[in-house]
């Protein structure tokens, strides 16, 4: 039955996280972007929202709340509405937790999820991207070879958030033949494993507050228990769809931030004696932002609803994420344009949203639902 309304619970979550994003995260965004550091106190405060622990089973100390991709998309949008770097940082533990929650063995769930359910922020992450211009989810070059009962994982990863402070990194690697999304496994890799080397913290155009790293894996020896899902392995395609929906939803959050700021600025700012918002060139820009935000969100929610029904949603999530990425750049670019010279200086946040927005098409695997 067609329904465009969120459940009451989802509305409550949206309002709570949204208010927190506006009041707590947004004010910290610029300082964090300039300094490259997110205040530990803020991270701890966000952790209290239980965004990671929430969906973990009570058996491991979680809240046992039902996990929903739609709800996940809402949370991702609201946090990114506050700040993208802080949103990715605080949700990073999900990159390890959710694949194991969904596809791990009981033993893996018990072993890995328990610490993540602890109170306070517990860093964890996953390594997916590889440092190539044409990197794609369907052509991983990091390899996993069987060595008796064990695995040998080798390759180079990049854009791994929080790698330096995470005990455990979930590493995606190609284990076998197969086209597209087949033949890929996820491995639970202790950061201190022999053969794992972290590069210096990466420097990017945007996301400056988010600590990401290159991770080199040289003949990393792992036991059978490291393979997520044991002999069953993982449904890589579905995990990537969840990733796209999460990251795409964050793009919507950034768009919304840029839209609201531009709308309010354009009503205040006067040129030739009238608010610039009364000029069609600016007004239509703002109308376009509003339309693109709703369009991207609906596309992502459609993919999320598919995931919640158990489908892979490969096509839906791919199209929706790419759409959101392109729209976010256009919206942020127009936000800078609408503010003119004021959009170009760091006194206003729009230039930061512009730099962050460009990341959505360049990056992958930084979020999930």
């Amino acid at each position: 039955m067609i329904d465009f309304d969120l459940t009451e619970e989802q509305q409550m979550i949206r309002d709570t996280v949204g208010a927190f994003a506006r009041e707590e995260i947004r004010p910290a965004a610029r300082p964090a972007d300039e300094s490259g550091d997110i205040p530990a106190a803020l991270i701890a405060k966000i952790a209290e929202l239980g965004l990671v622990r929430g969906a973990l089973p009570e058996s491991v100390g979680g809240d046992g709340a039902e996990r929903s991709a739609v709800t996940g998309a809402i949370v991702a949008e609201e946090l990114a509405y506050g700040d993208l770097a802080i949103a990715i940082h605080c949700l990073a533990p999900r990159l390890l937790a959710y694949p194991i929650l969904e596809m791990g063995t009981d033993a893996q769930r018990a072993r890995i999820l328990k610490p993540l359910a602890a109170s306070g922020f517990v860093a964890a992450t996953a390594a997916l991207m590889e440092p190539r211009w044409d990197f794609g989810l369907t052509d991983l070059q990091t390899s996993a070879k069987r060595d008796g009962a064990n695995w040998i994982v080798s390759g180079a990863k990049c854009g791994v958030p929080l790698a330096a402070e995470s005990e455990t990194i979930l590493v995606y690697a190609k284990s076998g033949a197969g086209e597209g999304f087949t033949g890929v496994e996820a491995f639970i890799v202790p950061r201190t494993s022999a053969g794992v080397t972290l590069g210096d913290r990466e420097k990017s155009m945007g996301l400056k507050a988010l600590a990401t790293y290159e991770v080199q894996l040289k003949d990393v020896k792992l036991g059978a228990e490291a393979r997520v899902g044991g002999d069953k392995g993982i449904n890589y395609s579905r995990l990537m769809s969840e990733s796209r929906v999460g990251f795409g939803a964050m793009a919507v959050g950034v768009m919304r931030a840029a839209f609201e700021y531009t709308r309010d600025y354009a009503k205040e700012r006067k040129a030739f004696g009238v608010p610039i918002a009364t000029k069609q060139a600016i007004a239509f820009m703002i109308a376009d932002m509003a339309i693109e935000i709703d369009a991207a969100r609906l596309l992502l929610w459609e993919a999320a609803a598919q995931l919640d029904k158990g489908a892979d949603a490969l096509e839906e999530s791919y199209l929706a994420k790419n759409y959101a990425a392109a729209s976010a750049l256009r919206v942020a670019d127009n936000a800078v344009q609408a503010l003119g010279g004021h959009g170009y200086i760091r006194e206003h946040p729009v230039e930061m949203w512009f730099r962050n927005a460009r990341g959505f098409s360049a990056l992958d695997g930084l979020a999930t639902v």
Partner: protein
Amino acid sequence: MIDFELEPQVVERLKMYHMVAENVMRPISREYDEREHEEPEQFFQTMWQAQSLADVAPGGDLKGDLKKDGANAAKPSGPKLRNLLTCATTEELCWGDAGLFLSTPNSGLGGAAVMAAGTSEQKSRFLKRFTEGEPKWGAMAITEAACGSDSAAIQTTATRDGDHWVINGTKIFCTGGQRAVEKSDGFVVVWATVDKSAGRAGIKSFVVERGAPGMQVSRVENKLGIRASDTAMIIFDNCRVPLDHLLGSAEVRKDGGFKDAMATFDATRPIVAAMAIGVGRAALDFIREFLRENHVPVRYGISPRRLSAIERDFMDMEVQLKAARLLTWRAAWMLDTGKRNNLEASMAKAKAGLVVTQITQKAVEILGPLGYSRKLLVEKWMRDAKINDIFEGTQQINMLIVARRVLGYGNKELN
């Protein structure tokens, strides 16, 4: 809970509409594009007899209201999703042929106006005809030479003379106007002002039936597309209609008249958006099949930097159409669930009108010399699509409405 999937019963019912589109409309699609101004009688009869199909009129399932007939399209998902269902069925039929869809004998936009502004007595009096006898059409006459997008600037007047209203003025771009008042016992709903000094509030709508003295169809336009549909210029020269042909109340109130009239747009814009989406999907489906036959892969999930130009174009066409459809369904759903959808209706119309114009133009380009040829219908879909970015409020008008709503401006501040 978020769910954008139609129920199985609805999907089943849509298949029926799709069959009509494919087997009744497509075979004569080219013929009535070439034979502009000719009447597809056979098609009229077929659609008229298929009652439940004729239900698909802008404004929704009128017979459902009139006959209190539970067995109508909207039933499965409850009558309250009627507008959404109308959008879905409209998409199917316009996938067949948008021009023929617009020429389908039914109460049309005229019916929508009666539904929006008429009393229940007027509804049954004026709409009953669409449930019986020969094929009939209902049309709406708003636009005038001097007012295109600016509906408030209407010059046509209606002055009371005893027990009649006397209408004077000339209306253009009246869709189905000739069929409504010359070729059938239908009617046209005419917007006219009863009190110029009152501005918008003075604008009322009047039902003018075939044969009303002083009404004359002075010309039917030659068009770029949707050629099966007639677009008429109608002259009202001291045209007399009984008092009870004024829809709703004759009283001139700030919040009356024009508001009702405008309210019909909130119902019709999603339907026009759905028309656009039907045309766009016709092109998209054709290209999808064409690429498959020509072994051009469409690889979802791979690095965007590894796509071919056509592959990326196709994916963009596909997602843009999806986006437009979701915006459209949302606007219709809001109406169905009693929410104000003025903003969302204009969002849907603006997006659908634009992207479908682009999708159909891209489809022609992808097919190269074949796309440009009239051997295929793709070039026709490009011509048909363009009207959706123009009528029921141009792209610019709808963007203006969206901007006003999100900025909290009235038409004084932003115009």
